[in-house]
C-alpha cells in the first residue's frame, strides 16, 4: 500500500493558503496563451473555472452533455450559499465556518482544504454581486441571510429558492464573456468518453458528439473534471436525468483514485416516491426547515388512520403530534444536519408512524410559522386584535415571499396545497461527498488531471452541510484551481501544442468506438432502464440510509451478477452514428454498474458509522452513529485494477491539528 501525499502546505492553518500561493510557480501571461486546458462539465465548478482560466489567458475548451452550459444541474440547487461574512453580527468567522464544516462532515474531511474553503467564501459573495447575481436583500438594501442545518449562525445567502440557478447563470455569463472574446470554445451536446494519457500525464480527452455520433479527439496540457456527483447510481435521486459518473469513472479506470465512494448524502426533505414508474425525485430545500416543523403522529392508530385516508393531519391535536427532531435534539431541533434528520425520519417510518400510502413519509408543517409571521406582520402593520383569518392571510404572504416557488413546485407534483395542509417529505439521494481523490492542489493521482466541485471528495467528509455545495463549486472554480493549476503548467510553457495523432489518442478512440459498438451488438431483451432501476433498488435497499455487513456482501454479489447480465442481455436500439439517447444511457449505466460495486465494497471496509455512512453494527445505545477514529480516520482511495472486486485500497490518514475530535452532538 502506498501512502498518499496530499501536499498540504506547511504553516499554521490560517497561513497555509496565502503562503502556498506565494510559493507556487506562476505562468507568465504571454506563455498562458500557448497553453490549452480542457474543462469537462459546466456547472458551478466547471463554468467558474473556465471563465477564470480564460480571463487569465489560457485557451479553454469546455464540454457539456446538455444543449447549453446553462443547464448543468447546479441550476437546480435551491436554498443558498454559505459565506463567513458575519453580516448578521452573530459571531461568524472563517474559523467557525471551517469548524462547522469539519464537524458537520463528521471529521472525515481534510482540515487544510476546508479552512481554505471558508477563507475564500466571502470573496464568492463579492464576486457574484459584482457580476449581477440578484441575491435577496433587506429593505435597507443590504444582503439578507438565513440559517441552514448543523450551524448556529445565519450565514446563508440566497435568491429565493433558486440560488443555484442565479449563481450558475452568473458563472455562465462570465463564461459567455470569454466565449465572446474567443478564449473559450464551448462544445455542447458532447460527452467525455475517455481521458488520454501521454507519458503518464493527462493530455486530452475522447468526446462523442451526441448529435452526429462522431468520436472526436481533443488535446490539452491539462484536463479539469467538473462533472458532478454520482447520485444516479441509485436510479432515483434528486439529480438530473443525465447526471452521471462516466467522466470521473473513465478517469478512475485510467489511474485516478476514487475516494470514499460510500459517502453519499440522503437529503431529508424530498417529495416522497409515488409510484413504480417514477423517474426522479424532487428536493424541497433545506431552507424550509428554518420555518417548517417536522412531525409524525404520536399514536400509531392515528398514523394508520392517516395512511388509510380516514384522518387528516390538520385534525390531529398538538398533544398527539411527535415533533421527533425537537424531542431528540433540543439544541438544533429541526435544523440538525441532513444525515441526522434523514435517519430520524427513517426510524419513525420503520417504527410504523409514516404518513402516506407507502408509510414512507413524514410531515413538514408550516402552520406555526404562518401564525407567528402573521401576528408579527399584523402588529407591524398596526392591526389591533387581528382575526385568525387575517393572521393566516398575512402569514401566508410572508411564507410565499420566502418559499413561494417551492410551495408551487410541491403543489404541482402532489396536488395538495401546503399553505393549508402540511407537506409530506421523505429522504432521497441528493449529493455524493465521495469522488475522485485530489491533493491540496485539486489534482487527482493522474498528473495534469484535476477534479473540482462535487466530482472530488475533499471538503465535505462523510456529510455535507446545506448551502456548502455551491460554496465549494465556486471556490474551487473561481479561486483555487486557477492558482494551483499554474504550478503544474509552469513546466509546460515550452511543450507546444499536443498532437492528437499520438498513439494514446488512437488507442483511446478505438476503445470508445469498440465499447459503443459492443453495447449495440448485444441485442438482448432488456432496455437499459431495466438494469439501471434494478441497480438502484439494490443500492437503495442495501447501501442506503443504513447498511450492514450481510447486506453489503449481498449487494456486491448482486451488482456483479447484474453487470454480467447487462453485457449479455441489454438491448440498445438505433446506431452509434446519430442522436441516440438509449446508447448514451447504456454507456453511463455500464459505469454505474462498476461504481455501485466499489461503493458497496467501500462501505463494507468502513467498520464504523460516520456522517451519511451508517453501519447498523456500529451505533450508540440511543441509535446515534458510532465513529471509530482510531481505526478509520482515513480517506479510502481506491485504485482501479480491472474488476471492482480487485480494487486496491490506499489510505490517506487524516490529521486534525486544529480541531479536537469529538462525538458529534446536536442534542
Amino acid at each position, binding site marked *: 500500500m502506498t501512502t498518499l501525499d496530499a501536499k498540504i502546505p506547511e504553516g499554521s492553518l490560517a497561513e497555509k493558503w496565502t503562503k502556498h500561493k506565494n510559493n507556487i510557480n506562476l505562468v507568465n501571461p504571454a506563455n498562458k496563451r500557448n497553453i490549452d486546458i480542457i474543462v469537462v462539465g459546466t456547472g458551478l465548478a466547471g463554468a467558474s473555472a473556465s471563465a477564470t482560466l480564460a480571463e487569465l489567458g489560457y485557451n479553454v475548451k469546455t464540454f457539456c452533455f446538455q444543449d447549453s452550459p446553462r443547464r448543468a444541474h447546479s441550476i437546480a440547487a435551491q436554498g443558498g450559499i454559505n459565506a463567513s461574512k458575519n453580516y448578521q453580527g452573530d459571531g461568524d468567522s472563517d474559523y467557525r465556518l471551517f469548524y462547522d464544516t469539519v464537524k458537520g462532515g463528521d471529521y472525515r474531511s481534510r482540515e487544510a482544504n476546508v479552512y481554505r474553503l471558508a477563507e475564500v467564501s466571502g470573496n464568492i459573495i463579492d464576486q457574484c454581486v459584482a457580476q449581477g447575481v440578484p441575491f435577496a436583500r433587506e429593505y435597507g438594501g443590504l444582503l439578507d441571510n438565513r440559517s441552514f442545518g448543523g450551524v448556529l449562525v445565519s450565514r446563508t445567502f440566497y435568491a*429565493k429558492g433558486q440560488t443555484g440557478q442565479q449563481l450558475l447563470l452568473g458563472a455562465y455569463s462570465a463564461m459567455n464573456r470569454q466565449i465572446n472574446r474567443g478564449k473559450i470554445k464551448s462544445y455542447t451536446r458532447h460527452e467525455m468518453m475517455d481521458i488520454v494519457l501521454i507519458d503518464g500525464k493527462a493530455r486530452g480527452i475522447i468526446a462523442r458528439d451526441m448529435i452526429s455520433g462522431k468520436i472526436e479527439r481533443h488535446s490539452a496540457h491539462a484536463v479539469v473534471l467538473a462533472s458532478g456527483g454520482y447520485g444516479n447510481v441509485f436510479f432515483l435521486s434528486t439529480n438530473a436525468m443525465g447526471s452521471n459518473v462516466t467522466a470521473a469513472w473513465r478517469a478512475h479506470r485510467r489511474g485516478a483514485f476514487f475516494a470514499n465512494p460510500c459517502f453519499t448524502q440522503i437529503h431529508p426533505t424530498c417529495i416522497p416516491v409515488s409510484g413504480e414508474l417514477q423517474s426522479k425525485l424532487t428536493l424541497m430545500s433545506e431552507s424550509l426547515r428554518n420555518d417548517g416543523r417536522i412531525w409524525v403522529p404520536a399514536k400509531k392508530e392515528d398514523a394508520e388512520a392517516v395512511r388509510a385516508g380516514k384522518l387528516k393531519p390538520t385534525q390531529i391535536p398538538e398533544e398527539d403530534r411527535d415533533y421527533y427532531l425537537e424531542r431528540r435534539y433540543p439544541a438544533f431541533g429541526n435544523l440538525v444536519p441532513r444525515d441526522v434528520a434523514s435517519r430520524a425520519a427513517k426510524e419513525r417510518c420503520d417504527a410504523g408512524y409514516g404518513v402516506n400510502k407507502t408509510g414512507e413519509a413524514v410531515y413538514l408543517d408550516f402552520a406555526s410559522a404562518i401564525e407567528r409571521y402573521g401576528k408579527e406582520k399584523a402588529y407591524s402593520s398596526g392591526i389591533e386584535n387581528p382575526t385568525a383569518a387575517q393572521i393566516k392571510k398575512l402569514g401566508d404572504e410572508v411564507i410565499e415571499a420566502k418559499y413561494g416557488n417551492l410551495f408551487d413546485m410541491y403543489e404541482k407534483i402532489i396536488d395538495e396545497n401546503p399553505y393549508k395542509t402540511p407537506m409530506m417529505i421523505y429522504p432521497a439521494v441528493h449529493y455524493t461527498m465521495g469522488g475522485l481523490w485530489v491533493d491540496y492542489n485539486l489534482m487527482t493521482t493522474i498528473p495534469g488531471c484535476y477534479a473540482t466541485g462535487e466530482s472530488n471528495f475533499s471538503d465535505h467528509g462523510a456529510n455535507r452541510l446545506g448551502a456548502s455545495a455551491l460554496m465549494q463549486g465556486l471556490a474551487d472554480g473561481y479561486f483555487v484551481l486557477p492558482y494551483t493549476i499554474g504550478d503544474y503548467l509552469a513546466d509546460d510553457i515550452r511543450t507546444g501544442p499536443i498532437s492528437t495523432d499520438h498513439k494514446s489518442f488512437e488507442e483511446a478512440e478505438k476503445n470508445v468506438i469498440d465499447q459503443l459498438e459492443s453495447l449495440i451488438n448485444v441485442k438482448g431483451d432488456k432496455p437499459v432502464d431495466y438494469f439501471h432501476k434494478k441497480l438502484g433498488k439494490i443500492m437503495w435497499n442495501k447501501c442506503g440510509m443504513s447498511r450492514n455487513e450481510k447486506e453489503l456482501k449481498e449487494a456486491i454479489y448482486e451488482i456483479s451478477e447484474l453487470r454480467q447480465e447487462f453485457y449479455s442481455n441489454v438491448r440498445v436500439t438505433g446506431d452509434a452514428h446519430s*442522436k441516440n439517447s438509449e446508447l448514451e444511457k447504456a454507456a453511463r449505466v455500464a459505469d454505474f454498474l462498476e461504481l455501485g460495486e466499489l461503493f458497496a465494497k467501500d462501505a463494507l471496509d468502513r467498520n464504523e458509522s460516520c456522517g451519511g455512512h451508517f453501519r447498523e453494527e456500529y451505533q450508540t445505545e440511543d441509535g446515534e452513529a458510532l465513529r471509530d477514529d482510531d481505526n478509520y480516520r482515513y480517506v479510502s482511495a481506491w485504485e482501479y485494477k480491472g474488476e471492482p472486486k480487485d480494487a486496491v485500497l490506499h489510505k490517506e490518514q487524516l490529521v486534525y491539528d486544529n480541531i479536537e475530535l469529538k462525538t458529534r452532538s446536536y442534542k
Partner: protein
Amino acid sequence: MKLTLKIWRQKSADTKGRLETYNVDGIEEDMSFLEMLDVLNDKLVNEGTEPVEFDHDCREGICGSCSLMINGEPHGPDRKITTCQLHMRRFNDGDTIVIEPFRAKAFPIIKDLIVDRTSFDRIQQAGGFISVNTSGNTIDANTIPIEKENADMSFNAATCIGCGACVAACKNASAMLFTSAKVSQFALLPQGEVEAHERVMSMVDQMDKEGFGNCTNTGACEIECPKGISLENIARMNREYLSASVAG
C-alpha cells in the same frame, strides 16, 4: 388511463418529418408528462423500434431543457409550468394528445422533438454579462445598497430558464421576452448600468441576426412563459434600446 399520441418524428435536420400515432396504456394520474413518454419509449424499445427523442434533464422545472408543443401550446395546457412539471391528472382517459417540437426558424430541428436552441446562447454571448473579472478582488458585497424593489424585479427577470417557450408561442417567433429578461436583470442593478447601452445594442443585434421575428405586442409569450417573465421587460428593453440609440 389509455391515450392516443400523435408525435412528430423526424430522423434528422435534413430529412422530412411526419406525425406518427401511438397508443399507450396504464398511464397513472400522478405520473408526469415525461414519465408518460418514458412509458411509451419503454414500449418502443421492447418492440425493437427507436424511441422518441426529446430534451429533458432536471425534471423539476428549472434547467430549461424540456420543451414540446402539447396540443398546440408550449409546455402544455397549464400556466407557469414546464412540460416536466405537467402531470397526467390534467388529461382524461381516451384523450388524443398531439406532441410537436418548438417551431421557429432560429430553432432548427435536430431529431424528433429535439430542437437546436444555441441561438439563445449566442444572444447571451453577445452581451449578456457584466465585464468584471472573476478574481474576487472587487468591492465588498454590501458596499452598494440596492433598493429591495429593484433587486426583486431584477431577480424576477433573472429567473428566465431559456427554454424558448416565448419564441414557440409567438406568431413571429420573436425572442424579445428572452432577450429583454437579461437586459432588464442588469439594467435594474447598479453593477449592470455601466455597460447598459453597449449590452442592449449587441444583444438585440445578435437576436436579429439569428433570424428571430419582430415583436407585435400580442403578449402570447408572457402567457406561455413557465416562469411568468413579464412583458414589462420588453418595454424596458425598448426604452434601453432607444436611449442607447440616441446616445449613439
